[in-house]
């Protein structure tokens, strides 16, 4: 080993604390980027493979009832490869040991072999046999939630009659990666499940012999699904189709793709910030590390080492430090990516998981870190190598300080000398001080923008569920019912108040723009389920006209006063021109509302409902649930408390886990920055500090100078971090807007507080670690050498 390499190894060992701290910073950037990119890649790849292997359909349509021969007509559409007709209906289930009514989506599967499309990933058991009326395959999450296994029984209200079903299989389906019940926002596997039954069994149960009410189509490669959708609509309109839709609009897939989009947004913004901070910091620390080696560089040159040889020596030092960080980051990123993907796979229910991260994320993260590190080093090494050896071996001239106008002020006259040392040091190298402050500030900013999610979620729950929803239970019907039904529900045990609602499936059109959205009819002044503005105002509906969410207004390009065409997708399918009366802001979905009486009049129908909101006496809930299970028209029962709970659970399982990684990394970042800042302050200040010790200053007094400098920079960093955090959080929130979900931009004071606390704590920990080194200051040695 050459002596230079030996020097390298010893330098690295001597600097191990700093090497590790810089490594941690690099690792946090690299790790986050790798984690995000690999998770996205894996999720996308898994979904693609799953869809491919299990023949997930590309176009879907629901009708009231269509004859089987229509399948041939659909198959004749250009670009259609395969057609599968089905019976799909919701039913109320009674699961032993579970008080509340459960909603099951019954989906038919052929009894003579595997389906052509939307094949089941059978986890246990088998498909239902031909002729068996009571055999069912359960979706795995539902079976798990109720601990149901092969051979277990459950009861279902099928077409108004209680039927005993026997579990013969447990499966997953590409159609239900994200299993969500009617009207729900989040999966709730205890209250909603999918059951696959034999095609003929369901046909006869729902009086659909020789007919179907649902169809999926597989397309030839390269076929435009929208084109097929239009053709399908044309063929099925007369059978009561509520409109065909492509895979992109299929509920489960739509949620999954939304999630991937959100992850991409996170991967774009936050790891970039981390990498930038890491690069920034690596650059700064290494430049100063090399600057300290100035006299060694002069000495090496005096011995005849070439500039290139010397540069290579320091580049190697940087390479090792970067390699430590990159290695740690790769390792952490790989495992966190795997962990994340596994969690997503658990949540999104894939039968298998493809986590085969390619080299690209690793290479990209490493390259970004290396370039940043090398740039910082090369400029510093060049600076030292340019000097003639004799000059380089002499220490640099003492820096020239100047008295600023500030120091002549009366106030500054009162400062003691140690404070002056701290202030002048910071003011003498404003750029360097700024860089350190910016590093700490960015760590705080990343913390704020990560923790903002918690505030946003709390805010959504508060506004969307707690303030806007006064009902305890919402009952939905499979078909439009007379308003008398609502009054009938009001007489059930424990029901204190009822409020009718009606949803009309429709296409809203304004010029060339079309949106599929149900128009919801609710009372002008709502007592239970409020039309709630994001600002916290309950919106009263005008007697006529639409009140639409700003998201929908934006999608349609309309404003209050404009007219919107409503193409109703049920009943006699009227096409109506309705003015937009007002808009309101909401976080979830893009709803459209109308006064329920006005909506019924437009439909030319007597007072009708598709659902009823109930306020319930909690003491009589069980009794109510028992009664509800007996009402055949009921197709869904949702509970507000359960929805809130699921919302929290879902968030905790997905977004919050992800966010918590960012929080941990941000803490590492804060510590990495402050520790390095304190170490550099110590190495540059050790001579002064030793001098002060000789002059009779105590350890505590010289610690003040060391802590003062890092502390002052942290103090400057905090407001900077708060401001950056505000901007960063806003950027991320804006980047996150989807049709489904708009994240409210809410940052609680406590969030700023926590972020600041972490910044202060990181500084305190760093300074305390470094302070221990003050005890080992070589008082005599320092005084014997020149400055």
């Amino acid at each position, binding site marked *: 080993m050459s002596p230079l390499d030996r020097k390298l190894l010893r330098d690295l060992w001597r600097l191990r604390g700093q090497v590790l701290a810089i490594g941690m910073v690099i690792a946090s950037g690299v790790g986050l980027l790798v984690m995000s990119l690999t998770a996205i890649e894996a999720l996308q790849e898994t979904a693609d493979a799953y869809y491919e292997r299990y023949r997930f359909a590309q176009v879907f349509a629901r009708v009231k009832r269509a004859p089987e021969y229509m399948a041939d007509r659909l198959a004749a559409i250009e670009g259609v490869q395969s057609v599968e007709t089905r019976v799909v209906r919701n039913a109320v289930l009674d699961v032993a040991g579970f008080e509340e009514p459960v909603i099951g989506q019954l989906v038919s599967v052929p009894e003579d072999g595997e389906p052509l499309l939307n094949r089941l990933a059978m986890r246990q058991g088998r498909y239902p046999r031909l002729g068996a009326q009571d055999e069912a395959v359960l979706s795995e999450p539902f079976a798990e939630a109720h601990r149901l296994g092969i051979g277990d029984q459950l009861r279902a209200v099928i077409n108004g009659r209680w039927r005993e079903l026997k579990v013969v299989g447990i499966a997953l389906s590409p159609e239900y990666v994200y299993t969500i019940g009617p009207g729900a926002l989040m999966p709730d596997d205890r209250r909603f499940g999918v059951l696959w039954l034999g095609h003929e069994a369901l046909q006869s149960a729902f009086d659909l012999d020789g007919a179907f009410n649902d169809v999926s189509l597989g397309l030839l490669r390269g076929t435009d699904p929208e084109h097929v959708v239009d053709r399908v609509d044309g063929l099925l309109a007369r059978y009561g189709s509520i409109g065909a839709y492509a895979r992109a609009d299929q509920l489960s897939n739509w949620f999954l793709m939304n999630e991937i989009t959100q992850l991409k947004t996170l991967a774009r913004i936050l790891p970039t910030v981390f990498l930038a901070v890491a690069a920034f910091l690596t650059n700064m620390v290494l430049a100063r590390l090399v600057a300290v080696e100035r006299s060694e560089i002069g000495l090496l040159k005096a011995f005849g080492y070439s500039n290139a040889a010397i540069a290579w020596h320091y580049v190697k030092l940087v390479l090792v430090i970067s390699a430590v960080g990159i290695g740690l980051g790769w390792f952490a990123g790989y495992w966190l990516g795997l962990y994340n993907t596994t969690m997503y796979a658990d949540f999104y229910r894939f039968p298998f998981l493809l986590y085969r991260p390619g080299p690209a994320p690793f290479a990209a993260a490493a390259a970004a870190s290396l370039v940043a590190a090398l740039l910082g080093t090369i400029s510093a090494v060049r600076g030292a190598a340019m000097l003639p050896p004799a000059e380089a071996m002499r220490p640099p*001239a*003492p*820096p*020239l*300080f*100047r*008295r600023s106008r500030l120091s002549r002020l009366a106030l500054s006259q009162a400062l*003691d*000398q*140690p404070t*002056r*040392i701290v202030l*002048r*040091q910071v003011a*003498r190298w404003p750029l360097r001080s700024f860089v350190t402050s910016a590093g700490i500030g960015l760590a705080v900013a990343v913390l704020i923008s990560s923790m903002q999610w918690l505030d946003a979620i709390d805010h959504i729950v508060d506004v969307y569920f707690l303030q806007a929803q006064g009902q305890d239970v919402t009952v939905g019907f499979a078909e439009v019912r007379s308003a008398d039904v609502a009054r009938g529900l009001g007489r059930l045990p424990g029901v204190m108040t009822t409020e009718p609602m009606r949803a009309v499936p429709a296409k809203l059109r304004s010029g060339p723009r079309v949106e599929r959205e149900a128009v919801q009819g609710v009372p002008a002044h709502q007592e239970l389920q409020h039309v709630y503005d994001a600002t916290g105002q309950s919106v009263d509906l005008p007697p006529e006209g639409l009140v639409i969410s700003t998201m929908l207004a934006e999608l349609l390009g309309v404003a209050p006063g404009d007219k919107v065409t409503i193409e109703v997708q049920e009943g006699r399918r009227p096409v109506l021109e309705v003015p937009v009366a007002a808009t309101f802001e909401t976080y979830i979905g893009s709803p459209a509302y109308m006064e329920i009486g006005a909506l019924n009049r437009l439909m030319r129908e007597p007072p009708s409902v598709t659902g009823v909101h109930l306020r319930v006496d909690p003491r009589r809930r069980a009794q109510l649930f028992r009664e509800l299970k007996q009402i055949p028209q009921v197709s869904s029962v949702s509970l507000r408390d359960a929805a809130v709970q699921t919302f929290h659970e879902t968030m905790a399982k997905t977004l919050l886990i992800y966010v918590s990684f960012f929080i941990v990394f941000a803490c590492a970042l804060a510590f990495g920055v402050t520790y390095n800042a304190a170490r550099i302050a110590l190495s540059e200040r050790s*001579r*002064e500090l030793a*001098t*002060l*010790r*000789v*002059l*009779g*200053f*105590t*350890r505590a*007094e010289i610690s003040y100078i060391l802590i003062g400098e890092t502390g002052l920079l942290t103090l400057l960093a905090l407001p900077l971090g708060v401001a950056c955090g505000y901007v960063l959080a806003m950027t991320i929130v804006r980047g996150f807007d989807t049709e489904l979900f708009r994240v409210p931009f809410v940052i609680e004071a406590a969030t700023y507080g926590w972020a600041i606390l972490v910044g202060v704590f990181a500084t305190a920990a760093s300074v305390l670690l470094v302070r221990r080194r003050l005890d080992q200051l070589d*008082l*005599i040695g320092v*005084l*014997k*050498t*020149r*400055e």
Partner: protein
Amino acid sequence: MNEPPGTAGPIASGEPGQRALTLRVKGLTKTYRSGEVEVPALRGIDLDLATGELVVLLGPSGSGKSTLLNILGGLDSATSGAAWFEDHDLMQVGDRELTRYRREHVGFVFQFYNLIPSLTALENVALVTEIAAHPMDPAAALEIVGLRDRLHHFPAQLSGGEQQRVAIARAIAKRPAILLCDEPTGALDSQTGILVLEAIEHIHEELGTTTVLITHNAVIADMADRVLVLGDGLIQQERRNPMRRPARELTW
């Protein structure tokens, strides 16, 4: 160690026994251990420093004079022997007490001035007066060393001699009982060196501070009351100058 440093009477050579002693050292040894090698730096020093005395320590490098000075100044601890400052045992105390000893009673001047580059001349002196019990005005201390018009200059704006005089002002501004100077002229040319020595001499006469001055320049010995020559960790020779020669008359 709270009492103010005593001020001595008129300065003249006299028998040490008849005057109060500032520092007493008996059988002092110091052995440096580096790895497995033991290097004796001091091998039994006996020394009394009378209040107000100006002593020059001469000796080649490695003779132990800096080690002795560091122990006297509370910067280093001896391996064995005894050392007292006035009534205080310097051997039996810890870091905290030694810090307090340096803070209240000792002034240091080094070869490389060790000024704080971010503080002006005045502020470098104030650094010490702020933590001392009975300091003089920092400006007055700088006036004593002839730097009245340099109060607001930073070290980088001062010549070597001026920087050393700031260091001297900083050392004496607390009115120390003892002033320890380690090669104060070592980094200076002779002309500037004499200016610095004059400053030390002036302070010694004005304040009566007990002063120990290390040098390897034998000429400087002439300005002392007493000259000690160190070699191999022992006092090899001791002589008393009948008359102190003023610094300005020295040449080398």
